[in-house]
């Protein structure tokens, strides 16, 4: 092996122009691919993070058919003008079995799901209208992803699973009515102490007052023509990934008669765009990689042609075919490795420059892009390409028939 390396290094040093040409091919190819891969990773990770934060959550419900049949069985508010099951801002919804959540959870594209009771209440004292949301604190992950969790509490505490007769209020509602932890909220003439204030950021759904499921069921039931029977009017869902939102929404919709699914933001075009840009960049990378290999193979092929006489001499003095073959492959590998390593370094520098020029936060990029692994994989791939590029010329060189070549001289 050391003989091969010694000889390969000697050859590469002596044929500077050819070596430089080979190096340039791998350098340029690897640089462009590295920069593109890192930019693509950064771009995809950033978009994915955005879509995951905002766009892969959606809610499912069935709208109330106000004038048609089919909704006879659903519970109706005693004061349908001011109160009712709704989703934002004015859609009146039907009640659905809460255990539908279990069926929804079985859809592969669905990550987590939790039922939600969202009911518009009229305050009996001053007549203002507010919404209450019944949640199941046991659905920790689903609530955290779609609605509210202990991380959203800016004052006080979040529900314990067995907490009863206490509420958490949304900050905007708390500010409007000057509510603090320890204040009480009148819901259906029952007073509920406030144990926490939740931040008012964007959510899949939102209520002014959050209650533990049994408390919400009891409070709402008193306002209906019949008591609730483990029913929910909304299902809050997070898809398994940003790419699966569309499929998840479609499948959930089929589970609910006349069901509707709504995402908080329009994630589907983003996801489609991600796919398009990913495919485009992948295609460009493939072309660049193929060109780099062809360029290198051509350089090695020319080298093999140019060195036919030299190879014939080496075989005449006792070099075996496999030594000649290995010699050419090692030379190609060395060129690709040096070109690949320097190209990957330059590509990384290019990525940083582009990201900085475009104003992207490099620190953020560091967090989402696995630079060492990416560079290691690209250098490995380049070395592999170098070996592949060297195989055919090496086979050609090894097949040289010394007697014929030396006779022709």
């Amino acid at each position: 092996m050391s003989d091969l390396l010694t000889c390969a290094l000697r050859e590469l040093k002596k044929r500077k122009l050819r070596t430089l040409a080979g190096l340039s091919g791998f350098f340029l190819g690897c640089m462009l691919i590295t920069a593109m891969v890192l930019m693509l990773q950064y771009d995809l990770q950033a978009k994915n993070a955005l879509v995951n934060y905002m766009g892969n959550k959606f809610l499912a419900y069935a709208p109330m058919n106000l004038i048609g049949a089919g909704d006879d069985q659903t519970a109706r508010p005693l004061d349908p003008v001011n109160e009712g099951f709704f989703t934002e801002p004015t859609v009146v919804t039907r009640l659905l079995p809460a255990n539908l959540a279990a069926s929804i959870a079985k859809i592969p594209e669905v990550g987590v799901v939790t039922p939600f009771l969202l009911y518009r209440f009229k305050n009996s004292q001053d007549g203002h209208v507010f919404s209450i949301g019944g949640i199941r604190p046991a659905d920790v992950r689903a609530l955290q992803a779609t609605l509210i969790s202990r991380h959203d509490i800016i004052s006080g505490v979040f529900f314990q699973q067995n907490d009863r007769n206490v509420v958490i209020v949304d900050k905007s509602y708390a500010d409007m009515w000057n509510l603090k932890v320890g204040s009480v909220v009148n819901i259906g003439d029952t007073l509920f102490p406030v144990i926490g204030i939740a931040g008012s950021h964007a959510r899949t759904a939102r209520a002014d007052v959050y209650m533990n499921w049994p408390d919400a069921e009891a409070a709402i039931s008193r306002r209906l023509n019949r008591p609730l029977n483990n029913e929910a009017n909304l299902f809050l869902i997070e898809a398994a990934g940003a790419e699966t939102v569309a499929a998840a929404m479609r499948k959930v919709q089929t589970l609910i008669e006349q069901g509707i699914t709504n995402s908080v933001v329009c994630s589907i075009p983003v996801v489609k765009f991600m796919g398009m840009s990913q495919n485009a960049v992948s295609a460009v990378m493939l072309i660049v990689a193929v060109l780099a290999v062809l360029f290198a193979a051509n350089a090695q092929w020319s080298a093999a042609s140019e060195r036919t006489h030299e190879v014939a001499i080496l075989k005449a003095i006792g070099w075996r075919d496999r030594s000649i073959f290995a010699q050419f492959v090692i030379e190609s590998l060395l060129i690709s490795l040096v070109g690949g390593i320097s190209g990957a370094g330059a590509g990384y520098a290019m990525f940083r420059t582009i990201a900085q020029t475009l104003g992207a936060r490099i620190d953020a990029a560091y967090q989402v892009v696995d630079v060492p692994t990416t560079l290691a994989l690209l250098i490995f791939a380049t070395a592999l390409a170098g070996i592949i590029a060297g195989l055919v010329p090496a086979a050609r060189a090894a097949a040289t028939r010394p007697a014929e070549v030396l006779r022709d001289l």
Partner: protein
Amino acid sequence: MSLLQVENVAKSFFQRGNELKIFSDVSFTVEPGELLLISGRSGTGKSTLLNLLGGLERVSAGRIVFNDRVITDLSMSELAELRANGIGMIFQNFNLIPGWSALENVEAVLMHRGISQSERLQRATAILTELGLGDRLHNLPAELSVGQQQRVAIARTLVNDPAMILADEPTGDVDPETADEILHLLLPRIKSGRTAMIVASHGLFNPALATRTASLKDGKLHL
């Protein structure tokens, strides 16, 4: 048992489906310490015969035995090993690698044989110095005179201490004085019995130096 036995060897080439017979029924033996001169006009197949003996080409018929090994049965890889260890070849036009120095050209024979680089360089330096090229080790062939180039080619052959040297017009391209120098480098080794040499020449080699002569004519070897 002779060092080399050539038994009824024939060689033909095929060009566009037509057989071109070069020679046939060539038989002879060579003993250690012998210098066999094979003479003949250009195109009679002298170089081809040397190529067959060196395993660079395959015989069309017959058998060649070298050091008790039937080399006509050996694989290309085994033949390469034979050239690396037992048979040295000297070509008329030297066949040095132009981009490699004199030292590298000689060292090349010792590569891929498990010999350390320091030993390779030491052996190559020693033989080149012995042949009077100690101050030309790092010169490229183009920077050497014709005689010096031929001496590098001889050094490349001798560095392995081969049992048999095949020389194709070893003095063909050099002036008589240089030819004498070259022969004086080779003959002592032959006379000492360390090696045998087969020289192919079309008349430029002095037959008086040979222990035996043969001529290749009309497709037959006449001893």
